[in-house]
């Protein structure tokens, strides 16, 4: 995309501001000046009796119906054309999925990489697909004059382009509860090469990212819990009884079986499960299937050590719990582990030690062990596996 011919959202919107503010200022000064002049000239001490009893003038009234009408119509058309610039996404824009939840943002790039700040390349238009996990949020970039609500169940989008490297504020503009004003992050605009390097930087396991992206984990758990489909925990090499064409047979889970299960999921269905999985033919590319197989083969599901810090970012924990000792909506993680704290139980303050068990319980059943002085507003994270919780606890222990 040639950015030199691209009209940025700011360039499209600001002239409209100038036009409306300019016209308004002229009108306002006109009204105010006329009023002041009349009040001074015709004040009672100077003009004890009214010198006219005129009660109307057809031509004057026609003039001030027609002129404002023309003026506001001009504003309307100009405003509309500026708005169209916000809606027409330039071709070749990079698509980023923005996920909003109470009270944090996460950004998913075309290659599956996720982050908590929105990294973009300078002069490269970005289209954001807005997804909400809970209530309505607002995706707002003041520097780019861009705003769009993030509505659950709705596919909203917006676009912008940064023409200079730098850091730009990203706010939640739609009120969403206690942490609304803390739901802030930034757009980090990097020179193109730097951005490409950042994007290519691998982190975590791409196979796992794919499992999340395509919703596999909605049915297949990683922690051994039963789901709609069989768990991935300990999957590789496991002996399973499958039903093929109505007949039971025994197999060992290997690459061929997993591949077939992805592409023709209902050919061999593990006994006890329903044949409900959709096929991923045409959805997953060959290298993506390989990445998933690689992840499942290494037993990543069962053994890979989860990165607690990353998880805390992804799940939005850090939206409320700071790492620097400042209390946000929730207590800070800094120095929390091992201290004696006062929690409310049945409206009575009880002193407890913030040990591993306490932290685990707080994640699993928020608000039952509420720290004194905070509101019971933490959502329940049912999607966290035992490994995830353990990783989070490890991470919190390390924040000192």
């Amino acid at each position, binding site marked *: 995309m040639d950015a030199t011919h691209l009209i940025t959202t700011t360039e*499209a*919107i600001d002239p409209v*501001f100038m036009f*409306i*503010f300019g016209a*308004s200022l002229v*009108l*306002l000064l006109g*009204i*105010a000046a006329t009023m002041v002049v*009349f*009040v001074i000239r*015709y*004040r*009672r001490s100077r*003009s004890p009796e*009214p*010198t*006219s*009893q*005129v*009660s*109307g003038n057809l031509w*004057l*009234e026609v003039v001030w*119906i027609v002129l*404002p*009408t023309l003026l*506001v*119509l001009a*504003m*309307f058309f100009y*405003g*509309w*054309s500026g*708005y169209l*610039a*916000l*809606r027409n996404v330039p071709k070749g824009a990079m698509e980023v999925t923005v996920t909003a939840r109470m009270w944090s943002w996460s950004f998913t790039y075309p290659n599956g990489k996720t982050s908590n700040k929105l990294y973009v390349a300078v002069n490269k238009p970005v289209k954001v697909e807005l997804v909400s996990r809970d*209530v*309505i949020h*607002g995706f707002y970039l*003041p520097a780019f*004059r*861009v*705003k*769009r*609500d993030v*509505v*659950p*169940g709705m596919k909203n989008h917006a676009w912008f382009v940064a023409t200079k490297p730098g850091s730009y*504020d990203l706010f*939640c*503009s*739609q*009120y969403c509860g206690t*942490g*609304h*004003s803390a739901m802030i992050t930034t757009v980090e605009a990097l020179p193109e090469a730097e951005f490409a390097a950042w994007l290519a930087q691998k982190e975590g396991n791409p196979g796992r990212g794919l499992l999340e992206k395509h919703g596999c984990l909605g049915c297949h758990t990683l922690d051994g819990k039963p789901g709609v489909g069989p768990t991935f925990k300990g999957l590789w090499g496991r002996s399973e009884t499958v039903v093929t064409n109505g007949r039971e047979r025994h197999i060992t889970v290997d690459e061929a079986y997993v591949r077939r299960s992805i592409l023709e999921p209902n050919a061999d269905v593990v006994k006890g499960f329903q044949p409900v999985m959709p096929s991923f033919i045409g959805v997953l590319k060959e290298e993506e299937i390989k990445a998933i197989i690689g992840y499942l083969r290494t037993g990543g599901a069962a053994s890979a050590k989860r990165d607690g810090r990353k998880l805390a970012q992804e799940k939005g924990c850090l939206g409320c719990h700071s790492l620097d000792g400042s209390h946000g*909506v929730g207590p800070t993680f800094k120095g929390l582990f091992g201290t004696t704290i006062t929690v409310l139980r049945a409206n009575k303050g009880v002193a407890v030690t913030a040990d591993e068990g306490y932290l685990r319980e707080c994640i699993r059943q928020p608000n039952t062990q509420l720290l004194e002085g905070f509101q019971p507003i933490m959502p329940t994270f049912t999607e966290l596996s035992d490994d995830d919780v353990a990783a989070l606890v490890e991470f919190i222990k390390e924040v000192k």
Partner: protein
Amino acid sequence: MATVQPTPTSFWNDTGKTGITSWIFSTDHKRIGLLYFYSTFGFFLVGVLLGLLLRIELMAPGRTIMGPATYNATFTVHGVVMIFLFIIPGMPGAFGNLVMPIQIGARDVAFPRLNLFSWWLYAIGAVIVLTSLFTGGGPPDTGWTFYVPFSARTGTNVSLAVLGVFVIGFSSILTGINFVTTIHRLRAEGMTWGRLPLFVWSIYATAWVQVLATPILGITLVLIMAERILGAGLFDPGRGGDPVMYQHLFWIYSHPAVYIMILPAMGVISDVIPVFARKPIFGYKMIAFSSLAIAAAGSLVWGHHMYTSGMSDTAILVFSFLTFVVAIPSAIKVFNWVSTLYKGSISLEAPMLFALSFILLFSIGGLTGLILGAAATDIHVHDTHFVVGHFHYVMFGGAGFAFFSAMHYWLPKFYGRKYAEKPAVIAWAFMFTGFNILYFSMMVLGLKGMPRRYYDYLPEFAPLNLVSTIGSWILAVGLIIMLVNLFRGLFWGEPVGSNPWGGATLEWSIPTPPPTENFDQEPVVTHGPYDFTKAGVP
């Protein structure tokens, strides 16, 4: 006509009874009007107090005096109290009741008992809203807009607050029906539609909006309760519902409701300016017609609250267009008010000062509304402090200052005594100055990108927030001076005659304070409301 007769028993001591029951069970429109005045103005003061607390919290970044949950509840209650308990019922309930029947030459409204019932519904609704603050999960924290799905999820006492607002809605509908009927049926002989005071025209237009739009609020609130209590899933996308549909329903009422708030205010201004300029209003017909035009077109612009919601671009095109159409009748009014001053004999007493400042503040509110009506510019400032500033310019600088104008203009008529002029002017000067510092800063903050309903903010927004908070204190000082002055004046001030300002409308032709049935005999109207020469006013 304007000779002062030996005073017939005024409505204050007609029944021979005193005490609270002679008020809360009275069907006299003047007593009911004062009941509305006391209750709505009382809530106004509560709202002011909450607003001042919000400003103190925002004085500096981070926690100042309260936590985020308290802050969210405070701005929600500030909005609910100001909108549903003060400004919607205030102007029609208080001054509509006090003045409108006398201005059309009637002894009372068409349905006096229904009128009393309306006040009771209002009082019951208000008590329910107050109860919601101290029971259950605590005061609601949804904002006065109650947007789903948040309002369906929050553990605070939303259901009870919504029930209170629902009951108050019925009060509004019944008042509307009462006033429409009164204005149609009870005009005195000679009180043609062309001789109606413009305040009556504005109350008439308002009453129609109350009757037609408020039921939609009722339905919307019932749907929220269905969502919360029954889990109906109407607005929950997980169950086939649509959160944006809620916004449509809410604004179909709540945008016209803005006109319930501002139309009577425009009526006050249209009545005050001619009297203090001793000149007929300029363009009577256009002002009367523009009230109806605003009421009609204003009912079709609700979507301009939703440009960012994800509704279709076609809808935005249509709503933006209609929004600009509504701007025209408002502009006509402003031009006509200013022209009325031409070659008049202008006296800058308190009611006039408030009226003239109304024109300025309302103009700023209206002109910044153009920024919000244009699709391109709205996107940037939507849901920011720009909207907060704009809204307060229209609602406080507009409707609020008109309410103060009406208080200084009409209350002496009903109390029989007058406040002192000098403190009134000083109070006005404080309020006008403080107001602009308070809300203009907010608009600049919004342009710089500070979202609204923000408990905390980035350091770059700190200086203007401090300025804004200082403005709120200056405004508060003016408000206190005004209150003390009015309170002292109305109860112990100088007695006033029947026509202290030289008005030509009917309320100035009867004794002060008015007798129970207003008129000894039904008046015959022979001239227009602003025809000062024919009215024999000096």
